[in-house]
């Protein structure tokens, strides 16, 4: 393979048959170019879609209860199912190993929030400290609700940055008092949630305070969990579904809800959405690879075809070479190396063109569903290897045929 003399011979042939080489190379280069662009946009789409769904932790489970619609075990339909603090605690204990973050929620709808003469309607939620992580909220100033706030039922509030800008304008809200339904709370922090405007116009207060201040007793309106994600998506989905199913069954058993009563208890698993999205991404990737590989195959078949014609055209030359003492192996290597060389070089050119185009275009592409298209190094290397292999395959048949050329046949005078 690394015979300098033979390479010189091949370069000589290539140099003296420029058009043929150019046309061969063009089909491969364009194939690789298209593949790289496709793969780049594939990664762009997955980046875009991923970032759309990164807003909330993707493994969130949300439990809500409602009114039964079916009679079950002698109980009439129309019962309101109510969860209590004890339920939350018993679930926490039971699923301790799986659960990562947990919170019970007690929302107050249409909560009017007043600061001095500024008023606004925001969603006020009583929650546990973990809600910060479940919602992916980050603090822009101050701190979040902590455990002692819950224990002592402090009248403290954490507000979204939207609430801050609307109520406080440019004033620093930390330490100021706001009034919710006429009850004063001290602002201890401002958060920002990547989920958008609606998520940022919320106010979190300790759940214990909420229950006490707003007549909640020990009732909770909803539960929200995230749990430890496994690296493997399928595995994560499986454990997540098992968890949400168990949780739902526990509630159904405890409150005697008919197994098919959808309205009475609802366990939402966001991973289900995530799974759909990831499978969509995988499908897109599959399609892109398919199209890209198809393009390469077309290119390779093209190279093979041209090499076959080349062998035909060079039959006489090959005959002469054999008469002058060329061994069959040297003829095979000559044709094969030419094919591999042309596919590799033109493939590299296509690769470089594709990569540099992505490099130039990538920073400009930042829409909702396509973000920073790029091809990672491994993919590029794999593509290159596929290419060299393809070159070898496309060269082999013509090379084999060339080695079978009989000098007498080839040299027979026309």
């Amino acid at each position, binding site marked *: 393979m690394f015979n300098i*003399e033979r390479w010189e011979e091949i370069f000589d042939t290539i140099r003296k048959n420029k058009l043929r080489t150019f046309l061969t190379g063009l089909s491969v280069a364009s194939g690789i170019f298209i593949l790289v662009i496709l793969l780049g946009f594939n990664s762009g789409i997955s980046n875009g879609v991923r970032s759309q769904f990164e807003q909330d932790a993707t493994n969130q489970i949300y439990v809500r209860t409602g009114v039964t619609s079916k009679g079950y075990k002698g109980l009439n339909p129309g019962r309101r199912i109510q969860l209590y603090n004890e339920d939350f605690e018993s679930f926490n204990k039971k699923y301790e190993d799986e659960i990562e973050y947990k919170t019970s929620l007690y929302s107050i709808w249409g909560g009017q929030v007043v600061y001095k003469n500024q008023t606004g309607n925001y969603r006020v939620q009583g929650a546990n400290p973990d809600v910060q992580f479940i919602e992916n909220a980050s603090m822009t100033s101050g701190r979040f609700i902590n455990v002692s706030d819950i224990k002592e039922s402090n009248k403290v509030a954490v507000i979204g940055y939207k609430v801050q800008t609307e109520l406080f304008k440019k004033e620093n809200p930390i330490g100021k008092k706001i009034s919710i339904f006429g009850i004063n709370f001290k602002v201890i922090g401002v958060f920002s949630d990547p989920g958008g405007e609606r998520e940022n116009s919320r106010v979190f207060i300790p759940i214990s305070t909420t229950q006490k201040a707003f007549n909640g007793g020990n009732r909770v309106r909803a539960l929200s969990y995230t749990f430890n994600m496994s690296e493997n998506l399928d595995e994560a989905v499986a454990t997540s579904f098992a968890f949400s199913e168990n949780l739902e069954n526990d509630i159904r058993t405890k409150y005697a809800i008919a197994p098919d009563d959808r309205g009475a208890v609802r366990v939402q698993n966001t991973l289900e959405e995530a799974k759909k999205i990831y499978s969509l991404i995988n499908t897109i990737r599959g399609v892109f690879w398919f199209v890209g590989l198809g393009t390469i195959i077309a290119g390779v078949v093209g190279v093979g075809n041209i090499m076959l014609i080349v062998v035909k055209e060079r039959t006489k030359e090959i005959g002469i070479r054999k*008469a002058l003492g060329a061994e069959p192996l040297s003829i095979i290597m000559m044709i094969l190396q030419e094919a591999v060389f042309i596919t590799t070089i033109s493939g590299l050119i296509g690769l470089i063109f594709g990569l540099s185009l992505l490099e130039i275009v990538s920073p400009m592409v930042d829409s909702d569903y396509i973000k920073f298209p790029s091809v990672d190094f491994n993919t590029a290397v794999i593509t290159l290897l596929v290419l060299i292999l393809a070159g070898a395959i496309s060269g082999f048949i013509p090379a084999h045929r060339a080695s079978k050329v009989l000098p007498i046949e080839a040299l027979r*005078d026309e």
Partner: protein
Amino acid sequence: MIEIKDLHKSYQMGSNSLHVLKGINFSVKEGELVSIMGSSGSGKSTFLNILGMLDEADKGAYFLDNIPIKDLNEKIAARYRNKFLGFIFQSFNLITYKNAIDNVAMPLYYQGIKRRERTEKALHYLEKVGLADWATHLPNELSGGQKQRVAIARALASEPKVLLADEPTGALDTKTSYEVMELIQGINDEGKTILIVTHEEDIAHMTKRIVNLKDGVIIDDTIVEQVRATANV
């Protein structure tokens, strides 16, 4: 140099076989200049192909420089061709995209000789055939006679034991033919063994021995008075 005993060759043509060579006994000593004559169908091309190891005999023995030539695989045949034989063809068979010197250097490439030595040697043989000034010209820039002389230089370059020429003057006019024959005679004078297949009487008489083939057998084998090619120009 060449020893051939009871050589047979037949070709399968559909259901019936065509017996082309029917027992040829033939020998050539070193330094001979032999012409093989015969009408078309006499088997002279087949005979030359077997001599050139491009084809193999069905039966009989062939010794080249005391080496038995039989049961050759392609690889060994190629090696022997390269080492022992130089070919000259009617239609020159130069590689069209290579210039004169690269064409001459071709057999040296297959001997595994390095580029610089190849070029030196090729130039030496081009000088010998009087075409040193044309070294960088492509075959289509050369006349027929020049092409054949490049081909002769190529055949000589590998320093073979025997030159095999198949109708070397067949595509040339009389004057050019004689010039080429003059060159071949000169090479023979230096001691090279040369076999020429021809159907032209005058060319045959420029060799030292004429072998006549008819219907697959040698019907006549005579030493002749060599006519020097220069005399005819």
